[in-house]
């Protein structure tokens, strides 16, 4: 296990390193001067030079990257804003706030959105998939399959607005989506996120229903499931302890990937529901050509994906003893 973790975490770090380098390089592929943005109306060359120094962009690109990298691990001294402790992802070009703090501040929103939606779609999707598998070919199966298919064909911004219109504005069943920290007001937290969760879930559930169903159907036809039945175990026992066990692997895999992507930014969702999460931060940093923020967000997103990949593999090994971690 330790070997596995060491190896995978090293691999993950390398991937993140490459991703950050690519992002860095691509950002500068278009000639533009971030200093110009903060220089404002009365910009003199001295001002520009000062701002460049403050932002730490008065070096060649590789050197900048090196300083940035060093900052991440060892902290870094900024001309304009003093020392920035490790992990230092720099200061935003657009409004000079520390990137790390901003991201940490936005993270709870995105995490709430992601985990909440994940809980909803996992429960709904897997539940529906199980029912469908149990009632193969019956009405319930057909219903679950087609409903899920319809769900997966919808777009967040399409359903999102319609749902807001009907459920919030017209019927008043749900609250306007909004963000309140859980620690501040759990009820508001919940009611503000309920609609985004549901909308996200509609779209994701489909995939889980289908996958759960197909996995279970496949597993149920496995020889070892037949053996279990031949031993005299009850249907329910066989279903949950044998078939479901086998079906879990791929579901966990996809779940991990989805969770990683969601945390990396449910950009469209956050945009649709005006939630102040990582996704919107990303859009904003793109709008403002804010490299440090963009880098931070990209790394967070990639990190989430990589992290959940490792988790998935570890969980997979727990589920399936045939897989050895190394």
């Amino acid at each position, binding site marked *: 296990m330790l070997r596995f973790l060491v190896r995978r975490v090293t691999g993950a770090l390398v991937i993140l390193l490459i991703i950050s380098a690519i992002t860095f390089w691509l950002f500068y592929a278009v000639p533009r001067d971030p200093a110009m943005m903060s220089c404002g109306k009365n910009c003199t060359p001295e001002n520009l030079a000062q701002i460049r120094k403050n932002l730490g962009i008065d070096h060649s690109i590789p050197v900048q990257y090196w300083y940035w990298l060093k900052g991440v691990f060892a902290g870094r001294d900024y001309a304009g804003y003093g020392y920035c402790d490790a992990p230092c992802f720099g200061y935003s070009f657009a409004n000079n706030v520390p990137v790390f703090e901003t991201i940490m501040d936005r993270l709870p929103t995105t995490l709430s959105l992601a985990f909440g939606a994940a809980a909803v779609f996992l429960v709904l999707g897997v539940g529906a998939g199980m029912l469908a598998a149990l009632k193969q*070919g019956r009405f319930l199966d057909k219903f679950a399959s087609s409903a899920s298919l319809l769900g997966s064909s919808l777009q967040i911004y399409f359903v999102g607005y319609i749902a807001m219109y009907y459920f919030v504005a017209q019927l008043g069943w749900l609250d306007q989506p909004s963000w309140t920290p859980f620690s501040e007001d759990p009820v508001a937290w919940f009611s503000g996120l309920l609609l985004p969760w549901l909308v996200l879930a509609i779209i994701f559930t489909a995939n889980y229903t289908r996958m759960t169903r197909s996995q279970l159907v496949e597993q149920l036809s*496995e*020889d*070892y499931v*037949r*053996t*279990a*039945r*031949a*031993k*005299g*175990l*009850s*249907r329910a026992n066989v279903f949950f*302890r*044998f078939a479901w*066990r*086998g079906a879990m692997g791929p579901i966990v895999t996809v779940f991990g990937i989805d969770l990683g992507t969601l945390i990396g930014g449910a950009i469209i969702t956050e945009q649709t529901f005006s939630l102040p999460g990582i996704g919107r931060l990303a859009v904003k940093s793109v709008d403002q050509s804010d490299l440090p923020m963009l880098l931070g967000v990209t790394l967070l997103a990639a990190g989430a994906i990589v992290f959940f990949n490792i988790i998935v593999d570890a969980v997979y090994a727990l*589920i*399936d*003893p*045939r897989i050895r971690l190394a």
Partner: protein
Amino acid sequence: MTSTDQQPFLSVRDLKVHFSTEDGIVKAVDGLSFDVLKGKTLGIVGESGSGKSVTNLAVLGLHDRDRTAIEGEILLDDKELLTASEKELERLRGNKMSMIFQDALASLSPYHTIGKQIAETYRKHTGASKSQSRVRAIEMLRRVGIPQPEVRVDDYPHQFSGGMRQRAMIAMALVCDPELLIADEPTTALDVTVQAQIMDLLKDLQQEFGTAIIFITHDLGVIADIADDVLVMYGGRCVERGTKREVLQSPQHPYTLGLLSSMPSLDHPVDVPLNPIPGSPPSLLNPPTGCRFHPRCTFAEKVEGGLCSREQPPLEVTNGRGSACHLTAGQRAEYFSDLAGSAAN
């Protein structure tokens, strides 16, 4: 059959198992009857696809009831199984009757330890505690010759070798001392040396517990080694049955004869070509009319009037011995004699 006085432990009458598939109805088993006696071994031989496994899955009631039409009668110790409820069947399976499958790796759950899988059966049917059943599992493993069973009990199937897996399967099947054991080609995937080990094991265990065994194989050599009675299946039907000696030494059906004569052996002369059955097995979707074997039968034209392609020969059983062929007894004696002799050599 030699001992007619005995009540059959399992009795199958006119069993029909039909699957409805996209392409039509597969008549996998079409009117099959046989008996298994207590403490005896019935060997079922037949080519791939002849319905051996389907028959035995029907006995255990493991077919998907929605998609399978099963007719006939299966009496286990005078209990009708086809009409039994799922609950009743669950109580019988693994307890009174159990099964060993061919592909042990696929048939053992990869997610649970060998010990758990064995113990589970025991607990289910005896209500023993966890620790009791674990002890029982270790004992069973030792019984089937797994070295260091206390250690190996916590291994997963993939950590076992092929032969050991098959032994574990056997241990699992026998953990509740079943009265009927169905072994579906338990040795086909194994090497000859390991096959010999497993067959010896089965024989020993049968002697010890008096279990009735149905042994499925397509290898007549294995039948010769282990079975008391033999049932030869072809295209979902029984073409011949009798004791091992009767069937192997004086086959009454051209198919059995063909099987015997197409087998290379360690002491046949080598320079003569083998004597294969021409053609290939029949489609069960669209089985040949009349005798299902007639397209491949070298004697079909010996029966006048093309009877073979029109009419299904009945299986006439006397004293447990019978065959389903239009050839007259005389014809058989004439055509088969030298052959049978050579086969028995």
